[in-house]
């Protein structure tokens, strides 16, 4: 029976090749077409040519300890054309609320901070992690991508992207070209992306390593500001090879380089200045003449180059289950390197499936990362440093995600799916001096991710 089937397949080989490849082609191209937000946006040609495919999903993201909480509905529409072209349009809307760490260390005494706008203050209790609870934002992101064959062996793709937040605008474009080899078992991709981002933060742009003004003490807020807005450009290049290994296995290797130039600071992040003079306050906050704690705004380099190597393999088992594993190595000229392992097992249960997911991420700290600045480095207001950040995202950290997804295919080829994941991020580093040793400088970040989706 198998032989007969094979024979009949062989007689329609060319037809099958074209049809199968039209299905597989957009996914193979995904690597060269994924701006963030439009990320990996070349949708799969699920339906027949000449029809639209739609997908709607909503993400609910909640961090514990009353920190960030986000809701993000996404809608995607994909048109598959007769000649293999694929058009994808996508819209996403984010609503973020909650509180974000401001970078200062916890302290044995209450701490008063000026809000980023300079209009008010907020107080963090003794022993608590300083978090700015004025964090609130909405974001709209729109993207369009186009993929089309040039001839039997060549294909190109192009994408446009734009997103707007209250204080942030990002626009970008990307394009790529692909060459098929070895009877379309090998595909070589080259892609290029350009983004231009503008930030116009509430309260303007603070000067790097300037002292946070205490508005209650009459400090001049405007003297610490250098401009109302700033921008950065990001250029990415990606080179990829996708290889069909055998009837059940496909593999992908990518090398990408990303160059950012411009304003790379987080204008809302500060560092505590810690007293390192022997005495009763050793390890406590250094205070100014008015008795207010001294904090400095962070300062990062104005350029960054990242290199990434990415490998992914998918393997289909005889029973229909699919194993999906990937690894990414990233290093940059800020001194950070990271390893990301991702593993999924799709357990096919008739028209439903369960997909356990495990992700492990580890990162080393940036050269200019430090949890606090010492009085010696502060140097009476003329810092001996030129760059410093205490942003935990640039520190030593490990991240672990454990999740489970459930999907069910309906008779009309529509699919319903949902997933629940738990993300735990742990930071580590210098544990401080004197009084600071009593504080928890690296609290964990814990988040629940819930997503529900429907494709039709």
């Amino acid at each position, binding site marked *: 029976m198998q032989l007969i089937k094979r024979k009949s*397949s062989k007689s329609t*080989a*060319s037809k*099958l*090749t074209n049809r*199968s490849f039209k299905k*597989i082609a957009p*996914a193979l191209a995904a*690597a060269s077409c*994924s*701006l*963030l*937000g439009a*990320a*990996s*946006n*070349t*949708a799969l040609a699920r339906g027949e040519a000449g029809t639209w495919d739609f997908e709607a*999903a909503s*993400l609910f993201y909640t961090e514990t300890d009353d920190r960030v909480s986000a809701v993000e509905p996404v809608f995607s529409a994909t048109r598959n054309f007769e000649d293999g072209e694929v058009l994808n349009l996508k819209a996403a809307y984010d609503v*973020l609320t909650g509180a974000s760490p401001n970078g200062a260390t916890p302290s044995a005494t209450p701490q008063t901070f000026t809000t980023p706008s300079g209009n008010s203050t907020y107080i963090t209790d003794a022993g608590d992690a300083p978090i700015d609870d004025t964090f609130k934002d909405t*974001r709209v992101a729109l993207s369009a991508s186009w993929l089309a064959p040039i001839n039997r062996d060549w294909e190109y793709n192009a994408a446009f*992207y734009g*997103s707007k*937040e209250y204080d942030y605008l*990002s626009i*970008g474009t990307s394009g790529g070209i692909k060459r098929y*080899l070895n*009877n379309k*078992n*090998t595909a070589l991709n080259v*892609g290029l*992306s350009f*983004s231009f981002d503008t*930030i116009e933060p509430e309260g303007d742009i603070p000067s790097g390593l300037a002292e946070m003004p205490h508005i209650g003490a009459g400090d001049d807020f405007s003297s610490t500001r250098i401009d109302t807005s700033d921008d*950065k450009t*990001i250029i990415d290049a990606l080179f990829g090879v996708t290889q*069909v290994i055998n*009837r059940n296995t*496909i593999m992908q290797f*990518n090398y*990408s380089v*990303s160059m*950012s130039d411009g304003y790379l600071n*987080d204008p809302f992040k500060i560092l505590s200045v810690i007293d390192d003079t022997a005495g009763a306050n050793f390890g406590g906050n250094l205070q100014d003449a008015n008795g207010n704690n001294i904090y400095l705004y962070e300062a990062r380099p104005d350029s960054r180059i*990242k290199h*990434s*190597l*990415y490998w992914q393999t998918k393997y*289909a088992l005889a029973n229909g289950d699919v194993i999906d594993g990937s690894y990414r190595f990233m290093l940059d000229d*800020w001194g*950070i390197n*990271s390893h*990301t392992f991702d593993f999924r097992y799709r357990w096919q249960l008739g028209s439903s*499936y369960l997909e356990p997911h495990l992700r492990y991420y580890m990162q080393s700290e940036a050269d200019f990362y430090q949890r606090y600045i010492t009085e010696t480095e502060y140097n009476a207001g003329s810092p001996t440093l030129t760059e410093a950040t205490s942003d935990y*995202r640039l520190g030593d950290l490990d*991240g672990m995600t454990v999740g489970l997804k459930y999907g069910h295919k309906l008779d009309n080829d529509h699919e319903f799916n949902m*997933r629940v994941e738990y993300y735990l*991020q742990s930071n580590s580093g210098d544990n401080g001096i004197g009084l600071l040793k009593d504080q928890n400088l690296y609290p964990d970040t814990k988040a629940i991710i819930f*997503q529900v989706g429907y494709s039709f």
Partner: protein
Amino acid sequence: MNRKVKQCINLKVLSSKSLRTATVLLLGSLVLSACSDLGVKPWERDVLARPEMQLNHDPIEAGLDDHIYFSKEASSGGRGFGGGGCGCN
């Protein structure tokens, strides 16, 4: 520095560059020739054509994940472009 020493250094740089180029070409050829032995016949693509066998079979989920991890970690991209697109980091 005398001319001989300079020449020697130049030759060393040249030979190290040539060696690197040769290594890249050799590895490239090996990879491509190895790739030519891999793969399937056109009529054997039934399993690979299944939606769940596409490398990025759920672009929406991948996009949402990219957004989460971009805002929490220092790395982004790899599968595709790392880009910008968000004031969250």
